[in-house]
């Protein structure tokens, strides 16, 4: 496949691996957080860590949209489907996230809820058009990448005069999450999470641009390299981060220049700010309440806001006590440090959200890398 294979080339990877080995100082350790689940997935799927020297460690960040969704938000969606009787549309991975009372959207579906998986927010609008007698709610999740399509769906529904379409908006913001991690006591005071730099988001940055990260580089003295989701992108970003650390620099660099500019997609940004406004606070799984970290629908579009239309309020629900998703999402623990990883909690029966999405740190490690925890035979 053109424009894809080039970024998965094994020979180039060897060259980059050699370059990283050469510049990484053997006297020190390097700890880099890849913020996005897309990077986590690429690292595990292609075995990128096998090519990195042992003193370069990758820490998985919280950038997996399904993972950071707290139980209470899934509960709201389930209530809409089972109690309000709406057709609930959502992206695939959301279906399997465990919620309260042993339910998930998938289980709510088997109990009679009309819950449908869609590939695009536009599909939800089409479903609303085809079912004028039913209320259709799009359960909108994700970071800045998926927010503009939700905005477009609302605009389309408005243009079509649809009275039966609304959105349960759970869109969250990347910079707020990065601030939260950098401000956390584990990073700032105790130093239990040594962080030497970030691999910045790929797709999110196509929308918001590279400018929002400049603050982190300056204020917290952490280098940021924005990188694409292909394995060579990740390797190149690691090399750039190692060089910044060695040179005691902390700036924003853009490896993903084929798609990301400093200003981002201004048209999308304008559309988003026309329809959405900041929430004062939003609960994230793992990060707890994070101020100004999520979006809600503006009053002018209140008719499309499922929270207002169905008058449902968010109720916080604590995670399963044995589940370490919170600590894993903050980079404090690794998946294999969790007691229930691979025993009670597996992709078939996930306890925590990180085991659900293929972008989740636990699912990625379980699916692709768990042999490393065991004495599996080297063939």
């Amino acid at each position, binding site marked *: 496949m053109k424009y894809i294979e080039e970024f998965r080339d094994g020979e180039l990877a060897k060259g980059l691996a050699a370059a990283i080995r050469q510049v990484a100082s053997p006297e020190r350790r390097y700890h880099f957080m890849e913020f996005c689940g897309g990077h986590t997935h690429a690292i595990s799927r292609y075995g990128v860590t096998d090519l990195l020297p042992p003193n370069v460690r990758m820490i998985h960040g919280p950038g997996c949209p399904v993972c950071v969704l707290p139980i209470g938000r899934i509960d709201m969606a389930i209530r809409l489907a089972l109690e309000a009787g709406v057709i609930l549309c959502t992206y695939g991975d959301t279906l399997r996230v465990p919620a309260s009372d042993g339910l998930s959207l998938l289980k709510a579906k088997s109990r009679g809820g009309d819950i449908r998986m869609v590939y695009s927010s536009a599909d939800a609008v089409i479903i609303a058009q085809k079912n004028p007698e039913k209320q259709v709610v799009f359960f909108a999740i994700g970071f800045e990448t998926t927010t503009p399509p939700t905005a477009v769906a609302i605009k389309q529904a408005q243009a079509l005069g649809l009275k039966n379409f609304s959105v349960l908006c759970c869109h969250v913001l990347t910079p707020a999450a990065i601030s939260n991690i950098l401000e956390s006591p584990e990073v700032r005071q105790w130093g239990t999470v040594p962080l030497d730099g970030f691999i910045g988001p790929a797709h999110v940055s196509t929308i918001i641009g590279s400018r929002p990260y400049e603050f982190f580089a300056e204020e917290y003295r952490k280098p940021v390299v924005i990188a694409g989701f292909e394995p060579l992108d990740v390797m190149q970003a690691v090399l750039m981060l190692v060089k910044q650390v060695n040179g005691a620099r902390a700036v924003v660099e853009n490896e993903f220049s084929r798609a990301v500019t400093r200003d981002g997609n201004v048209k999308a940004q304008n559309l988003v700010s026309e329809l959405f406004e900041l929430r004062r606070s939003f609960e994230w799984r793992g990060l707890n309440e994070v101020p100004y970290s999520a979006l809600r629908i503006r009053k002018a579009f209140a008719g499309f806001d499922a929270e207002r239309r169905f008058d449902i309020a968010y109720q916080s629900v604590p995670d399963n006590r044995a589940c370490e998703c919170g600590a894993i999402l903050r980079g404090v623990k690794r998946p294999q440090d969790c007691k229930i990883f691979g025993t009670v909690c597996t992709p078939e029966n996930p306890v925590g959200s990180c085991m659900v999405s293929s972008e989740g740190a636990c699912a990625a490690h379980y699916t692709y890398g768990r042999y490393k925890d065991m004495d599996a*035979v080297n063939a």
Partner: protein
Amino acid sequence: MSEIRKGYIRPLDLKHGRVDMTHGSGGRAMAQLIEELFARHLGNEYLAQGNDGALLPAARGRLVMATDAHVVSPLFFPGGDIGCLSVHGTINDLAVIGATPLYLAAGFILEEGFPLGDLARIVESMAKAAKEAGVPVVTGDTKVVEQGKGDGVFITTTGVGVVAEGEDYSGDRACPGDRVLVSGSIGDHGMAIMAQRESLGFTAPIVSDTAALHGLIAAMRRSGAAIRALRDPTRGGVATTLNEIARQSGVGMMLQEAALPVNPEVAAACEFLGLDPLYVANEGKVLAIVAPEDADTLLAAMRAHPLGQRAAIIGSVHEDAHRFVQMTTGFGGRRIVDWLTGEQLPRIC
């Protein structure tokens, strides 16, 4: 039924007619459907007996029996339809045991309102597939369910075949050192269905690989290679099937990503939808585990057959108490190729 007043019976209206409840009621309408559609296309001496069951001659060898239910949506897709798929699926289940398939039985569940013309297309396709494979449909059954209680047509086929003593295959015989072969490009069927369902307008349509494999497998047997196990990687794809064999045999496997045959359009569609071809269904491919010294012989035999032209050695078997199927990625790293979790694609066969 039609002997006395032949002129008074109107033939089935295949242009505008639809299945209604009388077609499953056991009365005249059902008899007409059987006669004008099923018997007409599938006809053979056993079906012509006209009894509730087919009386078959004694078979030589041990009997192998397999059954397969088909609920694919959409019913028609590039490269095939539910009719030929239901013939191939059961024949392949027999063939990978090492059996020579002999007879098929077919059960139809029709939904009220289903166009008779579409049903005719399906039955014709089934008849063509059965004829090409040389395996007759010798008995069958039809039921009709009310509108909304089915999805057009569901077909269950059951097959009977024979296998001689010592010539059968089982998934528990893979040994460390053995090689893993696949008969051609992977993921074609599942992606053909998915592209159709999601109306993905690819310029080069993805064509299902649905095919009866007993001819290819017979050629593989004739090569004399020490084949340990055969299996057709349908739902769950190559990844899931190899995990099944690894578990049954108590071994591990190591695949080479670079050796996997994947059609470029399938690779592109998978990339687009976030799927992995290793987990996408095939309906005309066979996986073989073979003794290392015979791998090249078997590969040559497969490549000499029309259905195995793109056969490849994709990995090897080794000792592993954890029974992991692993893969060396084209990137140079290593990863597990795990069991399929959840469902990757709905209703593909």
